[in-house]
């Protein structure tokens, strides 16, 4: 039995401090992103989430240049980008993708410049890869309270806005008729999403952060249509995928020929998330088919 366990989980997995930190921060970030993501999927704002993550890379790069913790850069730029999108008009469904895209294009251009300056002045091309693809095992313990703080802000905002936001997400017209200030709620939500995406960008990288935002939530919404249950399911799926990804990355030290490096954790997390989404689709379809047969 213990032999099987050792094959599944490499010895030393739970005693290594980078791994413990990766599990703690990764789990925290994944649950916040999954909760926010349920609204993202219902509102059809996956592209906005993706764009905010990419623009966060600009922030990551400038934080790197300025020598402040990357998290501040990610959060600052994502929130600013959310404001810009809101201004150009992300509220109307028509032309919304375009507004997102234009902001994204400009942000990416600036990221290119900042990363270029960073690599030329410091001569470390590793920054590009770290910012874009993440480095979950390089997180340090001072990051933990910051992540916790930002995560709590997001969750509290969502808890306060829960009912109006859910109504405005499912039926904006009905919400407006009930006296909900749809635009204000939408803007507050966009900013919460920006913070959540920034957190996820620090963990699995700017351009992969969408995976944690959209994947678990979309899978959960395939399994249940009740909002509360979907949020809980999404959080569980998100945390489980992240932990499984970290575990696989740790195990993968033994998979390479020379035993000299692990496969990236980001790759495993993203793959697990996609697999869960596909399985959830297959599962919900077979349930529906079973129901229609018995009816």
């Amino acid at each position: 039995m213990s032999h099987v366990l050792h094959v599944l989980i490499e010895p030393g997995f739970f005693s290594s401090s980078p791994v413990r930190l990766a599990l703690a921060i990764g789990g925290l970030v994944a649950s916040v992103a999954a909760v926010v993501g349920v609204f993202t999927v219902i509102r059809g704002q996956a592209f906005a989430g993706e764009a905010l993550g990419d623009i966060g890379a600009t922030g990551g790069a400038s934080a790197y240049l300025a020598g402040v913790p990357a998290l501040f850069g990610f959060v600052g730029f994502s929130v600013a980008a959310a404001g810009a999108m809101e201004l150009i008009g992300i509220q109307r469904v028509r032309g919304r993708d375009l507004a997102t895209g234009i902001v994204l294009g400009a942000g990416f251009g600036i990221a290119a410049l900042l990363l270029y300056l960073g690599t030329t002045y410091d001569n470390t091309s590793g920054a590009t890869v770290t910012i874009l693809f993440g480095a979950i095992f390089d997180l340090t313990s001072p990051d933990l309270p910051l992540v916790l703080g930002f995560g709590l802000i997001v969750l509290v905002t969502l808890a306060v806005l829960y009912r109006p936001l859910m109504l405005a997400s499912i039926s904006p017209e009905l919400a407006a008729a009930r006296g909900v200030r749809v635009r204000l709620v939408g803007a507050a939500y966009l900013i919460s999403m920006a913070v959540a995406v920034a957190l996820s960008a620090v963990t699995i990288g700017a351009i992969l952060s969408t995976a944690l935002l959209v994947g678990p939530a979309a899978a959960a919404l395939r399994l249940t249509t009740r909002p509360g249950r979907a949020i809980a399911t999404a959080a569980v799926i998100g945390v489980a995928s992240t932990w499984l990804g970290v575990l696989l990355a740790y195990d993968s030290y033994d998979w390479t020929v020379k035993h000299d490096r692990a496969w990236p954790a980001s790759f495993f997390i993203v793959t697990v998330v996609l697999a869960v989404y596909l399985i959830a689709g297959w599962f919900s379809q077979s349930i529906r088919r079973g129901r229609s047969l018995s009816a």
Partner: protein
Amino acid sequence: MFSGFMVNAWIVATLVAIVGAAVGFFVVMRGSAFVAHAVPNGSFAGAAGASLIGVNAILGLGVFSVAGALGIGLLGRRGRHDVATALTLVFMLGLGALFLSFNTEYGPQVYSLLFGEVLGISDNQLWPTLMLTCVCLGALAMLWRPLLLASVLPSSAQGLDPFKLELCFLLLVALATAMTVPVVGTALIFSLMIGPAAAARAFTVRPHLALALAVGIALAIVWTAIACSYASDWPVGFFVGVLSASAYTVGRVWSWSRRRGG
């Protein structure tokens, strides 16, 4: 600025601008900006993989962008379209991260793949690019009427299978991607696709005129970007991204002020 290796850059950049703007015209018409972002960005993994096994980067880009287009098309049939796009994209990028981790000497190349490098265009990239341009423009000419009809009035396009048309369109984006990557990089092709086309649409509603205007704006953007990049040594992608956004802003301000005046 116009000597030796730079000649290749100018030729390829001109082709890239024409194809990017032409395909981008439909991207904007159909409102599929997310797809236009996802396909090129995901194809980055293909280039990383190609360098790992030592084949031409354009081949890797081509294979991955087509695979990405098919993945988005098939996954998007059931379930939400934007979710399918996002998950296909992140999965391909995850693969890219994996390929990168296998390859230690890849740092600077990652950067030029993502954000473009004009100087990196060699003679043996010139012919594939020219060929792909012809294929893209030919396909676009053939699909012009059905695509335009289905983009403007989806309900009136009877007798056309929307799924097939969508797949054709996605493949077109994939083709355009494979050829544009070496110049502006995977991250910013998308900027070149939607910026000029969106700006052109703000100036005119007539499709032919808008298409011509989009190509004109794209050429101006790319040429300026290369000249600036050559002079300042800063990445091309930066200039392309900022100039596209500016073009769009000018278009928006123009149409807004006209609505005010009229």
